[in-house]
């Protein structure tokens, strides 16, 4: 067999220990120095190997008595022998490359479709699915229905192996994490991301509801988040029903997490799409806070809460969320289905409003920041200039006759009234006029500079709070005028 570093990478990094059946692969590894080197390199190289063995030297081999996770005890014997020794095994026309994980319904494998030449995810169902013919038929029916949902936010089902033993579903392979993993790792998500995810999930659910299909198990672990987090996909559509019936037949109890169940689901009543809306509400709450709205140590207590309790107010836990989003979650979490949003239009409307509220807030934020920054800079400049200006003004005034009737800064500032703010509109009419004037002599230069500074100081006092753009313009112009005036002042002063 040929060397395959990618396979080695998978073997090292996959969650499950590799089965011992791939005889050809292991025989190859035994003789191939290159592959063995690759394995050492993957693990950190020979230096690391030496380090680790050195520091673990006096570790008793019987250190841990704890049980390994049951994930590692997974039995892959149902796989057919691999077509190539590079693979773990084979199901139908799919070569199995690695184990992606394990969920409530079975295990998920990464496979390669040999006919269509593409990577796929294969969900192989746990043994209880095959318990009876009825369970099998139910599974086939639900899986076919799920496969009929074509929406960009629903993981496409490529194929259903209902008659295989064990049955399996072939889906698009989506690299990434589940929403559960994402929130577990990152904590509560930022508001814009919550809106993006919610809107996609709502659209996916609505597409299924339009076909009278209820998801029944909307929860973070059933939402896949793509690698760039821009897109999410719902998975396991409708399968919850078949799974629950199969489990109920077998054990008489509800399995899986009850955190996202609707009250009607908790009571075992008939469901429609509105049950999914409730679960979506729980999910948005979870994205916002990191915990589900109804939480208790036992399944029964959770169901009890779902039916009768109010969750902790989202607005208090996340005051930064737009009101429309909080309001939407509250409506989604209504105990009575008829109090929840009627359809996608209602949900989408709320999300759009929330989006506007976010951008509105950002606008306010930016304005505030900008205003403070500008005012801070201007004040600093003016403080310096103000000293120069006053000083030079009196020096100049003593040398200048009365024909230069220039405004006196102090009285003007004192007399300044809010009703009569410094009016820059005259400057607006011809803002460049002053700059384009031929350079006056030193004295009038200096007076002009003083005027500009007085203007600038007054413009701060005269800010019209409702006219931000004008303020910014004024600040900019005042700054520019002040910066032009500065050398004049220095020049005059030094010259004298």
């Amino acid at each position, binding site marked *: 067999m040929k060397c395959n570093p990618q396979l*080695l*990478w*998978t*073997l*090292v*990094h*996959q*969650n499950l*220990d*590799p089965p*011992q059946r791939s*005889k050809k*692969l*292991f*025989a*190859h*590894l*035994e003789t191939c120095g290159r*592959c*063995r080197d690759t*394995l*050492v390199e*993957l*693990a*950190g190289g020979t*230096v*690391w*190997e030496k*380090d*680790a*063995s050195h*520091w*673990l*030297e*006096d*570790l008793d*081999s019987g*250190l*841990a008595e*704890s049980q*390994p*996770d049951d994930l*590692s*005890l997974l039995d892959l014997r149902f796989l057919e022998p691999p077509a190539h020794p590079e693979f773990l095994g084979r199901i139908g026309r799919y070569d199995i490359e*690695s184990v*992606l*994980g394990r969920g409530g319904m079975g295990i*998920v494998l990464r496979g390669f479709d040999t006919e269509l030449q593409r990577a796929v*995810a294969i969900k192989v169902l746990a043994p209880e699915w095959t318990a009876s013919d009825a369970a099998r038929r139910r599974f086939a029916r639900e899986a076919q229905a799920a496969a009929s949902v074509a929406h960009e936010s629903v993981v496409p089902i490529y194929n259903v192996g209902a008659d295989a033993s064990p049955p399996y579903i072939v889906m698009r392979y989506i*690299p*990434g*994490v*589940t929403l559960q*993993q994402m929130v577990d790792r990152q904590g509560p998500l930022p508001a814009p991301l919550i809106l993006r995810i919610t809107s996609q999930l709502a659209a996916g659910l609505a597409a299924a509801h339009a076909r009278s299909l209820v998801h029944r198990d909307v929860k973070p672990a059933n939402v*896949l988040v793509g690698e760039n987090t821009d897109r999410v996909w719902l998975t396991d559509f409708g399968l919850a029903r078949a799974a629950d019936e199969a489990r109920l037949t077998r054990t008489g109890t509800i399995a899986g997490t009850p955190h996202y169940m609707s009250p009607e689901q908790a009571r075992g009543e008939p469901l429609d799409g509105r049950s999914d809306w409730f679960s979506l509400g729980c999910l948005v709450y979870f994205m916002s806070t990191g915990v589900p709205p109804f939480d208790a140590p036992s399944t029964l207590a959770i169901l009890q809460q779902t039916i009768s309790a109010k969750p902790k107010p989202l607005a208090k836990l996340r005051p930064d969320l737009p009101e429309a989003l909080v309001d939407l979650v509250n409506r989604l979490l209504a105990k009575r289905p008829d109090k929840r949003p009627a359809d996608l239009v209602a949900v989408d409307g709320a999300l759009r409003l929330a989006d506007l509220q976010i951008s509105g807030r950002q606008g306010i934020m930016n304005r505030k920041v900008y205003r403070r920054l500008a005012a801070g800079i201007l004040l600093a400049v003016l403080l310096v200039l103000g000293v120069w200006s006053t000083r030079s003004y009196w020096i100049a005034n003593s040398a200048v006759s009365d024909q230069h009737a220039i405004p006196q800064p102090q009285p003007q500032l004192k007399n300044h009234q809010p009703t009569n703010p410094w009016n820059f509109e005259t400057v607006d009419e011809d803002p460049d006029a002053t700059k384009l004037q031929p350079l006056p002599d030193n004295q009038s230069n200096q007076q002009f500079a003083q005027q500009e500074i007085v203007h600038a100081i007054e413009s701060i006092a005269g800010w019209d709070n409702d006219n931000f753009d004008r303020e910014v313009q004024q600040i900019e112009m005042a700054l520019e005028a002040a910066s032009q005036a500065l050398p004049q002042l220095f020049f005059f002063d030094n010259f004298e």
Partner: protein
Amino acid sequence: MNTPLTRPSLIARLTDRDDAEAWEAFHAIYQPLLERLLRQWGLQSADASEVIQEVFSAVTTAIEKYEARDHQGAFRGWLAQITRHKMVDLIKSNQRFPSTSGGSDFLRWLNEQPASESLSRWDIEHHRAIFRWAAERVRKRVQPQTWEAFFRTAVQGQTMSEVAQALSVDVGWIYVARSRVLTRLRETVSETAELTSEWRGPSDEM
């Protein structure tokens, strides 16, 4: 030696008293480490426990004031200092110490500079404690057979064919098992030191 000595990321997380995971890891690493060191310095078990308790409570109150310095080993130097103070307190409050061998060993240790670059006894034990902690975690994540294949060949130095026969597995399988354990060990140890983030392949969970 390219293994990390100190755990900035974990230490940064300790400032959050509610970060149960970080505190658990801290106790899991430093409790056995201090116990071992203190016993080596001749303290009796009860005295060692007392000092450890004092050290931990001092860390809990002082961690907020601790500012991670840039060089590696800053935290363990800081911790060594706290331990030293607590041992001084114990000895001062306890008349029997000057006469015991523990006292003299301890005085010798007091004269060592914990911040020195050399691998002092403290450093060696610190290293060992981190690896033990990491090993414990990794062992829980792999099959017992995988761990055994790694431990017997990589640490205990048994030959591949010997172990393959004992575990009735292929030699090739042992290479994979070793690589799996070493990879996870490295991840876990570097988790404690925030090494430069390495390239990660596609998520292996779903």
